[in-house]
């Protein structure tokens, strides 16, 4: 549970198409002050006459409480289905209802460490803010971004500047190294002495990174994306099986016990089944 969560009416400050995504800025008042990399916001969709009753969750790309009209958050949104298409079609000046900041944040090491940040598609969004914080703490930050093709790589110039190295992979080879992020990570870990991986992207990618992280014995914090009905912990739709420190697997809510979790604690590939031994399995 994110104790700073608030429900507000938010105004759209800007909306720009960037590659396959929309970069959108929302005025959010105090929410900006409390937003941490990994947190997300949940936005109502479709207006007063909407047939869509559930909010959509979006990772916070950046947050600042020094905007002209108070705090704002920036989001990177893929126009994918009816909800995101509606949202990305709104013009500046329009208002939406927003709840945030929600969920857990990436843990920041107290000592300077060598960190690798890995993003898939719009999953790169929360990594840039994280990168800035890590740098300010004296960490070395390398970054890998992957997507199906060039248009789906979200890597703004300021973002690129904040990392020591940026590796890009695309499935179709339209930019960077052809292939998956998991193809290039092992070398990066080895060559740069990586101590911790932070990742955000599709579940399959997070699972693959978890495996590599285990092989190399590095920590791995990942931001998962389960389908969420409420985003605030009251519906139990967004659960995934996570092994606790006591060794017990529990169905935890990714909206309040996540989205950022320790990759090694997740029982991956558990869609459509409850892993054996889960607490209360029936």
């Amino acid at each position: 549970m994110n104790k700073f969560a608030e429900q507000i009416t938010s105004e759209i400050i800007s909306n720009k198409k960037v590659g396959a995504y929309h970069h959108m800025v929302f005025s959010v008042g105090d929410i900006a002050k409390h937003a941490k990399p990994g947190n997300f916001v949940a936005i109502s969709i479709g207006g007063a006459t909407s047939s869509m009753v559930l909010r959509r969750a979006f990772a916070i790309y950046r947050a600042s409480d020094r905007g002209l009209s108070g705090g704002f958050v920036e989001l990177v949104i893929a126009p994918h289905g009816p909800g995101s298409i509606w949202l990305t079609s709104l013009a500046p000046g329009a208002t939406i209802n927003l709840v945030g900041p929600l969920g857990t944040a990436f843990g920041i090491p107290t000592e300077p460490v060598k960190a690798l940040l890995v993003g898939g598609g719009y999953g790169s969004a929360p990594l840039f803010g994280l990168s800035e914080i890590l740098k300010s703490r004296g960490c070395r930050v390398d970054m890998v971004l992957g997507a199906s093709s060039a248009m789906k790589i979200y890597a703004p110039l300021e973002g690129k500047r904040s990392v020591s190295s940026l590796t890009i992979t695309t499935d179709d080879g339209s930019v960077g190294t052809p292939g998956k992020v998991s193809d290039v990570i092992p070398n990066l870990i080895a060559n740069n002495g990586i101590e911790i991986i932070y990742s955000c992207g599709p579940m399959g990618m997070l699972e693959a990174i978890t495996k590599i992280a285990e092989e190399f014995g590095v920590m791995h914090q990942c931001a998962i994306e389960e389908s969420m009905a409420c985003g605030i912990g009251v519906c139990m739709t967004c659960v995934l099986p996570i092994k606790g420190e006591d060794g017990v697997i529990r169905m935890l809510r990714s909206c309040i016990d996540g989205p950022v979790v320790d990759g090694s604690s997740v029982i991956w590939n558990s869609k459509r089944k409850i892993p054996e031994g889960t607490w209360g399995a029936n």
Partner: protein
Amino acid sequence: MGCKLSFDYATALGSANFNNPIFTASGCAGSGKELSQFFDLRELGALVTKSIMVKPRSGRPTPRMAETPSGMLNSIGLQGPGIDTFLENDIPWLREQGVAIVVSIAGESVEDYAVLARKMRAVPGISALEVNISCPNVENRGQVFACNPETARAAIEAVRRNIGGELPIIAKLTPDVTNIADIAEEVVAAGADALALINTVLAMVIDTNTMRPKLAGFTGGLSGPAIRPIAVRAIYQVHARLPHVKILGMGGVASGRDALELILAGASATSIGTATFGDPTACIRIKEELEALLVERGFNSLKEAVGYAHREATQ
């Protein structure tokens, strides 16, 4: 304002009294803690807890939800810690908050309901027991208790016999039956003091990309505004048949107008489920909107409005 101050918003279900008629819906308010971040729980008529079973339950695998036109499907599968942990952890916290508490229980067998009732009888500070009998009966080919007059009766009788004392029993029914008023009569005869109408409607979504049922559990329960006309019908029918039995209405209430609709149909209070997912403060907004609408229409109390749509009913 003078008018509003004198408006009597209190309601009752069986022998339990509540400050106002806006409750959370079972399974839609977490443990209470999650919502308390958005408003003071004492503003609620009551908090209805997620249906608790005898043992811990992992619930169903994911995906557990699908959005549908003006609604959603869920197949949580009654995930929960089991009655003992629940009584140890959740109830004391809720009691501390000073919110009226309605505990929802669910069983897989008649014996389960008896066990749960016995566990509850000694628990202080509970306003009422909601008995969710819209769950599969493992002893009867997985048929839902409330789908069958005999099993519905047996479950409620088991609770009645074991609960003792004054704790009112609210039997929660499924609309997935040929005649809900028949089931209502049966459970009232078996000892239910009040009725909760309606649970979700059995439904399915097929993902047209994977071309398989979207939910891991195949079917799920449809909730939200899409089912409100079904809830209104069920409440109206049952109130017509059993005018003296109090009803906790639910199903797609997302505004004060919607709550009013259920109350006019015959509900003495309404639970808010899916609306909270779209709007964490839905309960408070609806409570305020409903009161304003009732005052606007000249009612002096909530109770006057209950079942008002039945006046001079000639059909």
